[in-house]
């Protein structure tokens, strides 16, 4: 029996976002958990699975699940922690779905809390392991995406102004979101005049660094139907990863994303034309262009032209990152993309609601360019 369409998201919770002095990753995760179970109309006794992503500032590291379970007083049938950067949220939800489908748990809370902003995290890690690229100055999250942008510009003629279209769209949407951190509208010229970080990327190509917490409750569709909110069905899902950075000729183009998206569309029996709104992981602006090509919204190399003229803004052909994304809402490493996807499908987004949403594509990517996933959320 296929898993497609049998698992649903029953509740979501997000804390306030931004610079949250005095908060801890643990208390933010718990805050989000309480909001999510309330959203679903569940009690904590109904939760028999806990999957967590340790925050960048969580002292427990990979033992984070133990501390979280202890702190909320739950002895789960199914639990664990995983660290896959911005791909973690989507991958944990897929893990929860698989566990529920296999009968290992009935209702799983997927949780993240972080204080990267007040903790002074700069995402300055170098790839390369024992032969660290840091020896050659190749450090920080921006650098890998700068490679992707530089190659895309050379092969397809994409420009910095195309990247600016993504930043402008996300900021425009964040202005409509009271929980977003950066709400002052920006122009393409503002983007062009922002300081260079790692050429060809500028400051306004980069996501924020934020404090906050997010929780997503996953259960069976049959069970979700009896809960408080309209269930949001996981109609399709996929994930794919590359570990071979230097030996993978087009690693910079993240071709594995295309596989993750193809699996999501195949399992949902849908295609790009069926998508009403998309939440595409945007650690840097170039990321959105790659997703648009890999999902088949446009052809390879044509995303720069595709995003011109407000096409990915609310009111355009394909609204993207309707809450503001990592670039302007808050950097919850993609977890808020899932929350916004659920809310768009439930049609509860007020003045930023896309009309008549049936299907929302949500994607995640982490560990620079290595890990990726995709889900199609659908009205139940």
């Amino acid at each position: 029996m296929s898993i497609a369409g049998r698992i649903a998201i029953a509740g979501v919770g997000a804390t306030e976002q931004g610079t949250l002095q005095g908060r801890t990753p643990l208390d933010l995760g718990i805050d989000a958990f309480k909001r999510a179970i309330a959203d679903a109309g569940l009690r904590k006794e109904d939760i028999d699975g806990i999957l967590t992503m340790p925050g960048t500032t969580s002292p427990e590291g990979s033992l984070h699940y133990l501390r979280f379970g202890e702190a909320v007083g739950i002895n789960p049938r199914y639990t664990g922690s995983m660290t896959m950067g911005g791909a973690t949220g989507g991958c944990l939800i897929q893990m929860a779905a698989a566990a529920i489908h296999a009968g290992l748990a009935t209702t799983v809370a997927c949780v993240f809390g972080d204080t990267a902003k007040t903790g002074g995290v700069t995402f300055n890690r170098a790839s390369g392991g024992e032969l660290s690229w840091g020896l050659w100055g190749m450090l920080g999250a921006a650098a890998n995406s700068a490679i992707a942008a530089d190659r895309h510009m050379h092969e397809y003629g994409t420009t910095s102004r195309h990247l600016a279209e993504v930043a402008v769209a996300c900021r425009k949407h964040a202005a409509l979101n009271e929980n977003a951190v950066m709400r002052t509208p920006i122009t393409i010229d503002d983007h062009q005049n922002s300081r260079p970080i790692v050429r060809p990327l500028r400051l306004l190509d980069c996501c924020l660094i934020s404090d906050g917490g997010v929780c997503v409750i996953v259960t069976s569709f049959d069970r979700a139907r009896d809960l408080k909110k309209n269930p949001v069905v996981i109609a399709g899902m996929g994930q794919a990863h590359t570990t071979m950075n230097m030996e993978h000729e087009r690693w910079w183009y993240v071709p594995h994303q295309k596989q993750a998206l193809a699996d999501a569309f195949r399992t949902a029996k849908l295609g790009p034309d069926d998508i009403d709104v998309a939440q595409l992981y945007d650690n840097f602006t170039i990321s959105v262009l790659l997703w648009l090509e890999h999902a088949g919204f446009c052809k390879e190399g044509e995303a720069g032209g595709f995003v011109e003229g407000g096409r990915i803004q609310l009111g355009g052909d394909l609204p993207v990152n309707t809450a503001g994304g990592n670039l302007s809402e808050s950097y919850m490493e993609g977890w808020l993309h899932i929350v916004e996807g659920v809310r768009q499908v439930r049609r509860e987004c007020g003045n930023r609601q896309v009309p008549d949403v049936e299907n929302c594509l949500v994607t995640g990517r982490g560990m620079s360019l290595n890990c990726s996933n995709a889900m199609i959320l659908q009205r139940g």
Partner: protein
Amino acid sequence: MNAPTKKPAPQINATTQPFWDAAKKRELRMQKCADCGHIRFPIGPVCTSCLSDKADWVKLSGRGTVLSHLVFHRAYSSAWKEHVPYSVAMVQLPEGPRMFTDIVDPERRYIDEDLVGRTVEVWFDLVEGDSVVPRFKVSES
């Protein structure tokens, strides 16, 4: 021989030792699988193509072509602070492997240029702590 550069020194272990020993002799060497011939980089205990653990450290030409050229306008570690702005290139070696390298450019002649497609050649840099790190500079010819 240059005066020691203030850039990070490598953490050397048993697997990577031959790479750094070769650099001290002003040679760029990588592992070539003795069973299938695949030259791998980064350095690893087995062939990424056939899993053989037999390899020869073969000397490479030391030339390459720039696939991507970045310019760092901020430092992500204190060791690079005094070098900002600096160029980093992803380099395609003719023998197959690719590697990242900063571009040796003390007069910053290439910061505002686009080096994609240009030929670069290895340059051996003595760093503080008596290590030698292979980097690349733009070929003039």
